[in-house]
């Protein structure tokens, strides 16, 4: 991480008590881990600091918790940042960032559809891929469905 970029990251990190600045882990130049309560505040701060492009929003089901991953790219700082936020596995609920970055709109609907994470304040919180009457969220590790035939474990 270039020094100026590191400085801006550090300055952002102190503003939020739960924000932890970690070194990059292969996903982006820097990584900030934050609690879901302060996510909106951090997002507005980052948007102001020049992170105008939200490239990817996705989630990973770590069985005991669901990790949300936002990958931001800034043309001015020419650097990329990943924001991680962990949600409880039962009713994952988090604030929607579609207000700050409209690009998040459809990707958050995908996370809602496949992981069941509810986004508060999303313009149209509906499933995007699966039919509305589909029960369950496929990408959860504990997802079971009659139409799912497992490939025999022969590797």
């Amino acid at each position: 991480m270039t020094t100026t970029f590191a400085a801006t990251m550090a300055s952002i990190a102190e503003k939020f008590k739960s924000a932890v600045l970690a070194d990059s882990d292969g996903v982006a130049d820097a990584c900030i881990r934050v609690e879901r309560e302060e996510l909106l505040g951090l997002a507005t701060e980052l948007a102001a600091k020049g992170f105008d492009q939200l490239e990817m929003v996705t989630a990973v089901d770590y069985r005991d918790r669901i990790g949300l991953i936002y990958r931001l790219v800034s043309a001015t700082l020419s650097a990329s940042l990943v924001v991680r936020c962990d949600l409880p596995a039962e009713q994952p609920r988090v604030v929607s960032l579609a207000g700050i970055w409209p690009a998040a709109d459809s990707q958050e609907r995908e996370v809602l559809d496949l992981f069941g994470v509810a986004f508060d304040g999303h313009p149209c919180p509906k499933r995007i891929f699966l039919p509305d009457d589909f029960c369950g969220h496929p990408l959860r590790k504990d997802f079971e469905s009659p139409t799912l035939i497992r490939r025999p474990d022969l590797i």
Partner: protein
Amino acid sequence: MSTADTDGTRRLDPDLDPDGSCGTAPSATAAAHPTVVHATNEYSSGVRGAFERCASLFVGLGITAGRMRARPKTLRYPFERLTLSPRWRGALRLTGLLGTDEVSTIQADCASYNARIGEMAAAGGLPPCTGNCPANVDARGQALYLAKGMSAEAYELVRLRNVLPGTMGRICHYPCESACKRNHYDEPIAIRPLHRVAYEGFQQVRAERVRPLPVTRGQRVAVIGSGPSGLAAAFDLMQQGYEVHCFEKEGKPGGALYSGVPAYRLPRDILHGEIDDLVAMGLRITSGVEVGVDMPIRHLIDEYDAVLIATGLQSSRMLPLPGADAEGVMGALEFLKVGNLTGDVGISGKRVLVVGGGNVAVDCARVALRVGASQVQMTSLESMDELPAHPWEIEEALDEGVVALCAWGPHSVMAEDGCVTGMRMQSVVSVFDAHGRFAPQFADEYMEVEADIVLFAIGQASDLHRLVEGSGLELTERGILPVDRTLMTTQADGVFACGEVVTGPGSAIGSIASGHEAAVSIHRYLQGIDLAEGRAFRPDLQCPRYGDVDLEGLQATRLRAKMPMAHPEERAKDFRSVELGITEAEGLREAQRCLQCESGVCVGCAFCARACPDYAIDVERVDDPDNRHVARYDLDLTKCCFCGLCAEQCPTGALRHTAQYELAFYHRDLMVFDKQEMQRPEEGSRATGADGCAGGGCD
């Protein structure tokens, strides 16, 4: 009429920028501020614009008219067909199937063996285990026979190229197993233990299988030395019908295998049993006669049509260190000869220090333990992982209590009144220089090691002075016999040489391989064929490097037969054999694990089914020895995604893509190809002939 627009169309005129000159490698600058091309272009304003608009219509009409005149590009299927690229991934097919097709073994006499191996390698039919073995032993054929329980045939097939299968089954450094394709999947086939299983199987039928070989040619060949290389050359020549007479200076034949290799590695009865087989097949061995001392070589040259010097290396090289002449300093070979043959060297209770890091040094250390040394230490210039000795030998030695002092160079021998008390060692910084040549660098840090006996195992040399008197052969000043390494000929006509006297210290199977080369040269010399002409030299096959496989979680049936080892403490006390050998049933199952690589016959190993992302292949094999066949091979064509991963994984190359793309069916259940359908002929265009319906008006 080109639409003259803003620079957006600059890209369009190739003459402006024919060679992409501005495309020189701008590296960093391009990334900094990329040159930007604008794609927007408008009509010019006013009347010119209107003119351009109408012109654009006529330009469009012109282009389509131009295309009308050109000849159509259509391929009129089914009369004209596109010639597919040879790599087109069509429906899968099996070139051969276990049970219906036979895997070919390499049966060729010594003269044409190398040519046969060369052509198999060129055609991609050479299994990696055979390719990586210096003597190209057909390990695949051996596994094929053993899987059918035919251990005698397996033994005879191996003996074609490896004259002492039982012996090599115990002492070979098995380069074949490191090349085995199963390294890629789980564990390699235990080829060396399978030699032992073949040997034990052969012993039951030895009586009626060992027949004297017919002598069909008049010439007689003399072989000096009955080491592995001499015996290999002798056996090849006997098969060609020559009469071979072998002279051995020791009491018993076997050369380095008898005197050098310790008994715990190679029991003597197995070695001499196999040599007796050779004698029974017509080899005359007179032991106790040293050529050059008891009998002049000139006598052999006159008496015999060809003479082969296969004496091996006799004396071990000593380091001219200060104090090296003190009493208690011995050479490795002398120590081993006495240790192996008589068993008491008079070092019981003494501390032994072995200098050197090769296999001979490890043998010396372990023999020293067994003949009563109280403490055995080894020092070597190289660090632990650079030791030239085989890793499993070092490990066994360390288990038995040998202490290794690595990266210490010998400086001088400390002696008190003539007998050794220890050695001063100097620490080593690096052994090989940048180009890998042996140039040790020393640091000035010293250490003393107390020892009563010091053994130098840093190299061996041959002393042929007495042998070559009167034979017209001169030795170089360092006592080495000049030999043409490919044709195995010496300056004297009719005198050849092979084995370690030519190649220098190496492996036993390496000497056997040079023995085969010498036999080919002698045969051609005696038949008057030009030695070098049409001489097919063995192709140098690099063994592929496989990624390491983590074995936990694999089914037990896929793993390798474990070689039971004697307990370290007990085996260190006496010369009982270290490896206890695997049972006959384990040998059968191990042979069934062999994938018969590059044979073009599917052995039902199911690695294609493992590689397939869609689980479209279902393989089942029946394994009883007398009827070993693939019971079921179902390819569900409706699930196959034609990605080719299975054909790449197929070790035998039996699973191949055909050029068949006409895969239209009326009946869905015919699209699961069974065994018969998978062996359909290559050229037919329709995969399942049974499904078509005759052209128009069929009833």
